[in-house]
């Protein structure tokens, strides 16, 4: 069944673009262009996720979020905002949003984060002791990684990077998500440091293999998967 998303965003062009993009990804999107309507739709229920702009006419995004959470509605919320400073992000997350994306954003980033959120909301996190993708195996207890019969020796940080990619396999993972998820950095290191780390990991995983597992998604980030 198609996933149902509620978009609360007052900028018509941005909203149109998100509605179109998510529609192309097979999702159903309802759109509200102000806080009050948004809250009305959200309480009506039935959404898998809500994308909520922070600065809205009528009722501020933080107020909408507060009212939702106070009303016992725990639909995952991805907050969008032009206020992108760390302090603003922390305020948004503290208020009860599940993720926070600063404007301007790439659609791929929005999609990647939304998918991640939907998955978290859908399946309860089960404790796992091993991860796999194709013939790549990662044992989280012994911290050993094997591609087929070949043992791969990874630095601790490379291990965590690969673990993150494996936990989000077949999904687009953006550079910002890697920075936050692997390094816990909430600032922009400027240069292409992440690309260098991924390319090192890729050499260890994919060099000499018939099927590459780490793919670059142009303009978005990376994806770990068996299909190119």
């Amino acid at each position, binding site marked *: 069944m198609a996933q149902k998303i509620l978009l609360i965003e007052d*900028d018509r*062009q*941005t909203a149109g*673009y998100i509605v179109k993009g998510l529609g192309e990804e097979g999702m159903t999107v309802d759109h509200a262009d102000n806080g009050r309507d948004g809250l009305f739709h959200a309480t009506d229920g039935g959404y898998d996720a809500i994308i909520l702009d922070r*600065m809205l006419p009528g009722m501020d995004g933080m107020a909408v979020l507060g009212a939702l959470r106070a009303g016992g509605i725990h639909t995952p919320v991805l907050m969008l905002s*032009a*206020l*992108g*400073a*760390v*302090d603003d992000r*922390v305020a948004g997350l503290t208020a009860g949003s599940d993720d926070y994306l*600063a*404007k*301007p*954003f*790439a*659609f*791929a980033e929005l999609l990647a984060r939304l998918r991640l959120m939907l998955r978290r909301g859908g399946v309860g996190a089960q404790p796992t002791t091993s991860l796999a993708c194709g013939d790549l195996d990662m044992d989280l207890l012994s911290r050993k990684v094997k591609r087929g019969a070949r043992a791969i020796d990874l630095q601790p*940080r490379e291990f965590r990077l690969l673990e993150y990619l494996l936990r989000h396999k077949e999904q687009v993972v953006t550079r910002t998500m890697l920075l936050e998820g692997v*390094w816990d*950095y*909430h*600032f*922009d*290191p*400027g*240069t*292409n*440091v992440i690309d*260098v*780390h991924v390319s*090192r990991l890729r050499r260890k995983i994919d060099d000499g293999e018939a099927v590459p597992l780490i793919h670059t998604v*142009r*303009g978005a980030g990376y994806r770990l998967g068996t299909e190119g």
Partner: protein
Amino acid sequence: MRVPAFLRSSTTRFFALVFVIQLISGTALLMFVRHIIADELERTSRTLVTELHDDLVADYKQEGLSGLRRLISERLGSTPARDAAVLLDDPVGNQLAGNIADWPPIVPFDSGWQVVTLYRMGRDHPEPMGIIASKLPDGTHLLVGHVVEGDLRVRELTGEAMAAALLLAVPLALLGAIVATRVITGRVERIAETARRVGMGDLSLRVPHDAGMHDAFSDLAASINLMLGRIEALVAELRVVTDSLAHDLRSPLTRLSATVERALRETDDEAAISALERVGSEAGTLLAMLSTALQISRAEAGIGRDRFVATDIGQMIEDLAEVYGPLAEERGFLLSASGTAAGVVHRELIGQVIANLVDNALKYGRAGGTIALSARQDEGAVILSVTDDGPGIAEAQREEALRRFGRLDPARSASGAGLGLALAAAVARLHGGTITLGDNAPGLSVRLTLPQDTA
């Protein structure tokens, strides 16, 4: 001669002033009391002597010399005149009556009140006494006196009491000076402490004062509070302006990058793709500049202090060295991190600053050279430094390098907006610290000195 620093301090001077004034007023008060007592004693003795003298002279006038001699004997025999001294001499100096053997050579025959030391008959020691001498009409001389030994003893005692009181006054004056200095400096310090903490970024603080009181300190506190209110309002205004600016510029940037993203998906034309990618990259640069400029403004306004947390800075630079390690290696640099330090800082901003400095070093340093990150603790401060061995920055240009949009390259050929060092300077100030650019001989050394506990 140089005056020691503590003597130049106005607190010390105020203390000394209060102390000296109290001592002088205490001494003056005691001397006044002593004077009154001495005066009263002398006046009493003088009255006694004058009364006796006048009685004797009146008797002489009535009853003549023989009557006077009888009266002298009577008076000297009575108890109230125990301290009296009288001498009646004939014109050639023979004693006619009294309890003094001879006319004392130091006393003229006709004198007013004076104090002399004389022997009375039957006494084994000379006694100080106040006397009056006069010449009677028949040429005889009359000397009337009153022993003032007791008075002198009282005077002596009051002198001793005064010295003792002065000794006691010194610690009391000291205590008074301490209390007065404490009260005054306490009030000044409360104002100074508020100003210091406001300077550190807590703009909501006000100088505590009792609104009902009307003195110079409450006036000062009220004026300072008025000023602090204005500053707080201005900063709040700045926050609104920067936030609106962020919003108004980010929305079109969002639309721009969305349009580029869509266009990229819909074309296969290599030339169009490369042009669109350039547009996207320029939009990214614009956004990065906007973000950094906003970060600088917010840091300058002291926004973000509530995000200060205890941070292992040594670990942080090690992490950053690890993140940048592969990139540095790829570009032919050796990147190292050393030292340990911990402090209460804005983790993200400090991380951003170090990342920017490493970025700069990678951009301007000498390939094949070393980029060194270090952190150490020194007398309550955390000293963070990033050094490279590139061309460095000439001393005359260092100030310009720290300015917003300050660019050292007039042609602006190198990429970057010239905001990295300005952000570092703003973040250092946010922490109450400083930034210095130095010569790494060769290369640039950027040093951030942050107070260890800025919270």
